[in-house]
C-alpha cells in the first residue's frame, strides 16, 4: 500500500519548535507539505545549533535542530511583507487541503492570509492555528517558548524533588510531543470529517492546554480534593523500591521498579543482598513504600560498584522492570532495540551530508515504501519547482517575482 496521506497538500507556515513536528508527521506519511518561509523573517531554528561539524558557516541549512523537524517537506520562499505576497499564497492555498501556522494569534490575518481569506478561495480548507495559549483570551498574545509553557502548565511544579526547585523535563517538552501531536491528531480528525461531509473548518489549538491535559489527574486531585500533588521525584504508587540508582562509571544510573514481592526477592538476589530479602523493615510493599528513603540508600550502596547495563540484563532476565539510563550517544550507537526497529535513519542532506533522523515511533503494517525519504529542505529549495508544478507559472514569471523580491 502507498502512504496514507498521498494526495493531501499542506501549506505550512509553522516554524520554531512546536509547529514543524505537526506537519512532519503528515509529510512522513505522504502529504505534500509546502513550507512557506522567508529569508526576511527566518525560522530561527535554521540558525540555532547543533550544526554539521559544529560549524554554521553562515549557512541557513546546517542546523540539526531544524532538520529533524522538517523531513520530506518542500521549501518555498515568499516575502510575507511584500504587497503581492497574499495573492500568491492564496493561489497556493487554493490547491491545499490543510493550512498550518503557529505564528502569534492574529498574525496570519494581518498578513492577509487568515482563515477568512483562505476559505474564500478554498471553502473546505482545514486551517490550524496553534498559539501558545490559543487564539483568543486575555493572555493569547503572551510571548513564550517551550520552557515557559512548561512552567505555566504545571509540568515544572509537578516534576522534580519536593524539597528542591522544580525542574520539569529539562527540555522544551511541550514543543516536542504534546503540542505537535495533538495538532496532527486534530488535523487528521478534521480530514476524516471532510472526507465524509465535504466540510472544512478552523482549528484553534492551545499549546498550553495540550500539556495541562497530560497532567489531568493532578488537576482533578486539585478540583475534587483540594490537593496539591506536588513533586514526587521518581516515586510511584505501585512500585517500591522505584528509583534511579547510581552505578559504576561517569554519571551512569539504573532505573528500576519493583511491582511485587517476587520482584523484590529477585532484586535482592541479583544484588547479592540476601540480608535485604530477610530484612523485616522491607518485607511488604507497604513497608517498602513507608521506608523508601532507607531502602534507596541500601540499594544505592549495592549498585554503585555495578555496571548499569549488566544489572539491567540480569534484572530483566528475572522479570524485573529495569533499564540503564541511556544518553544520546548510547541511543544512537549502542541500543540493540532501536537498531532492530530501525529508529534512526540516515538521510543524505545536500549541505549536512549523511545525517541521522528519527523515524516515527510507530509502524503501519501495510506501508511498503520508506517513511523517511527526503532530508530537510534547503531554504527555498523548491520555490521554482512548486510555482511551476502547482501554480503553472512560467520561468520568466518566476524570474520577475524573484527580481522583485517577492520570492525571498
Amino acid at each position, binding site marked *: *500500500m502507498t502512504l496514507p496521506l498521498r494526495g493531501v497538500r499542506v501549506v505550512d507556515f509553522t516554524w520554531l519548535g512546536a509547529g514543524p513536528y505537526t506537519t512532519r*508527521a503528515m509529510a512522513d506519511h505522504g502529504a505534500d507539505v509546502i513550507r512557506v518561509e522567508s529569508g526576511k523573517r527566518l525560522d530561527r531554528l535554521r540558525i540555532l545549533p547543533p*550544526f*554539521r561539524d559544529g560549524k554554521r558557516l553562515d549557512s541557513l541549512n546546517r542546523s540539526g535542530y531544524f532538520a*529533524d523537524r522538517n523531513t520530506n517537506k518542500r521549501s518555498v520562499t515568499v516575502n510575507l511583507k511584500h504587497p503581492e505576497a497574499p495573492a500568491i499564497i492564496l493561489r497556493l492555498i487554493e490547491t491545499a487541503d490543510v493550512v498550518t501556522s503557529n505564528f502569534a494569534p492574529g498574525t496570519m490575518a494581518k498578513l492577509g492570509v487568515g482563515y477568512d481569506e483562505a476559505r474564500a478561495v478554498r471553502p473546505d480548507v482545514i486551517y490550524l492555528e496553534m498559539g501558545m495559549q490559543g487564539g483568543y483570551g486575555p493572555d*493569547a498574545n503572551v*510571548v513564550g517558548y517551550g520552557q515557559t*509553557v512548561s*512552567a*505555566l502548565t504545571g*509540568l*515544572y511544579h509537578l*516534576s*522534580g*524533588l519536593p524539597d528542591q*526547585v*522544580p*525542574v*520539569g*523535563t529539562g527540555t522544551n517538552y511541550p514543543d516536542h*510531543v504534546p503540542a505537535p*501531536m*495533538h495538532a*496532527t491528531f486534530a488535523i*487528521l*480528525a478534521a480530514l476524516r470529517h471532510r472526507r465524509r461531509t465535504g466540510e472544512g*473548518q478552523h482549528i*484553534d489549538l*492551545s499549546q*498550553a492546554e495540550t500539556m495541562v*491535559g497530560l*497532567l489531568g*489527574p493532578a488537576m482533578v*486531585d486539585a478540583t475534587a*480534593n483540594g490537593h496539591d*500533588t506536588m513533586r514526587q*521525584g*521518581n516515586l*510511584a*504508587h505501585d512500585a517500591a523500591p522505584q528509583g534511579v540508582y547510581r552505578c559504576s562509571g561517569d554519571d551512569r544510573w*539504573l*532505573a528500576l*521498579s519493583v511491582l511485587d514481592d517476587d520482584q523484590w526477592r529477585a532484586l535482592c538476589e541479583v544484588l547479592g543482598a540476601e540480608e535485604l530479602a530477610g530484612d523485616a523493615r522491607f518485607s511488604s510493599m507497604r513497608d517498602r513504600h513507608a521506608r523508601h528513603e532507607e531502602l534507596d540508600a541500601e540499594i544505592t550502596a549495592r549498585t554503585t560498584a555495578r555496571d548499569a547495563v549488566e544489572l539491567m540484563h540480569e534484572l530483566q532476565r528475572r522479570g524485573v*522492570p529495569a533499564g*540503564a539510563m*541511556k*544518553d*544520546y550517544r548510547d*541511543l544512537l550507537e549502542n541500543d540493540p*532495540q532501536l537498531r*532492530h*526497529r530501525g*529508529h534512526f535513519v540516515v538521510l543524505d542532506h545536500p549541505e549536512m551530508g549523511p545525517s*541521522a533522523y*528519527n523515524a*516515527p*515511533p*510507530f509502524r*503501519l*503494517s501495510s506501508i511498503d515504501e520508506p517513511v523517511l525519504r527526503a532530508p530537510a529542505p534547503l531554504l527555498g529549495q523548491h520555490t521554482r519547482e512548486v510555482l511551476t508544478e502547482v501554480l503553472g507559472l512560467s520561468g520568466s514569471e518566476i524570474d520577475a517575482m524573484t527580481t522583485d523580491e517577492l520570492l525571498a
Partner: protein
Amino acid sequence: MTAATTGPLAGIDVLELPGPYAEYTGKLFADLGARVTLVEPPAGAAARGRPPFLDDRAGPERSLWFGYFNAGKRSVVLDLDDPDGVTRFRELVAEADVLLDGTGHPRLMADRELGPAQLRSLNPRLVHTVVTPFGTDGPYADWEATDLVLMALGGLLSLGGYADGQPTRAYGDQACLAAAQFAAIGTMLAVLEAEETGAGQLVDVSAQESVVMAHENAVPYYDLEGVVRTRNGGTPRQAAVGVYPCSDGHVYLLAKGLGVFWPQLVGWLEEEGVEGASGLREDKWQDDTFAAGEEGKAEFQAVFERFSMQQTKEELYRQAKAHRLPLCPVYTPADLVANPQLAARGYFVDVHHEATGRTLRMPGLPYQLSATPGRTQSGAPRLGEHGGGSLAEPVEATTAGAPR
C-alpha cells in the same frame, strides 16, 4: 446527535483493552466523538486502583486517575480467559473499527488466539493498534517496563533532574502518554486508510521510541557535533534563563538564549529601581561565556532576587506581560484552575460522574474545532456499566501510604 455535537470521529467504534499505554489514546478518540468501549477484565481495569481517589477513599469507582482518562468511554466486562468471554470478544471485534491494546502485553492476546492475524480474519477492516514498551519485535520486545524505565531507556531521563544530583522523571507517566499520543496519530492514519480502501492493518507503537522523539535536539547534537547533552536542572542555564524564586513560589524567566529580551528585562528592573540593575547594561553581559559562567549567573541572580522576592508570581507575570518578556509563573494545579486565560476559553469542564453522584471538574479538549467541536460526553463508566459478565473480585486499591 449531529457531528457538531459529537465531533469529527462520530461513527467510529473503538474497543480498548485497558492499560497504561493507550488510555489517553482512547480518551482522545472519545472526546472527538468516537464510541470507545473499554473491555475490562472481571476485576476491572488496573487503573481503577490507582490514586488519587475521590475524597482520598479508595474504591473501584473512586479513582480520579481512572475517572479522568476514561471519561466519555463505555465499559463492558469480559473474561478473556473464559471461552464465553472470548466468543463475545470476537463478536465485538467483528463489528469494531479499531482495537486499541494498551496493556503493554499483546502476547497475552496471542496466547488466547486473539493475535493480530486471527482478529483481522474476523474483520479485515480492523485497525489494530498495539502500544507496547518497546514495539512488537526486537531483543527487548518481551522486557518488562514501567514509565520510569522507559524514560531511562528512551533517553529523556538523562536530560531531566539536577545537574549535581540524580536524574528525575516528569510527573504523570509522560512516557506512556507520549506513546498514547503517537498511537492516536498512527491509528487515525490507519482509520483514514481503512475508510478509503476497506483494509485494516496493524499499528505497532513503541513507547521507548516515542520517548526518543522528545529529544529536542539531543540526537543531532551527538550526530552532528559529537556532543552528548546532559541534564542541567536546579540552577539557571545562564543569567536570566531558568527558574527563579519569588515571594510565593517560582517563575521561569527566559531573557537570553532563544529569548532575545535582555534590554526589556534590564529596562524593567531599572524602572523598578532595583539596586544593581543598571550594572546589567555593562558590555560583559553580551558575552555568553560570562553570562553562562558561575560569576555571571550569581551576579544576575542576586540582582533579580532583590526584586522577585518582593513580588508574587502573579505580579511578576502581569508586569512581564506588560514588558513583552517571556516570564511565566510556575503554576500549581490550583493556580491553573483559577487561571483567567483557561477560563476565557472554557478549558476546564464539569463532567457528571454517575458512579459517585459527583461532578468532576477536569481538563477539556485542548483544541476548538469550529465545525465539529466534540466534548467529554460523560463521566467514566461504572465497571461493566454497558454489559458483560458478573463482577468477580473487584480490583484492589494499591497500597495505602504510597505517593499520589
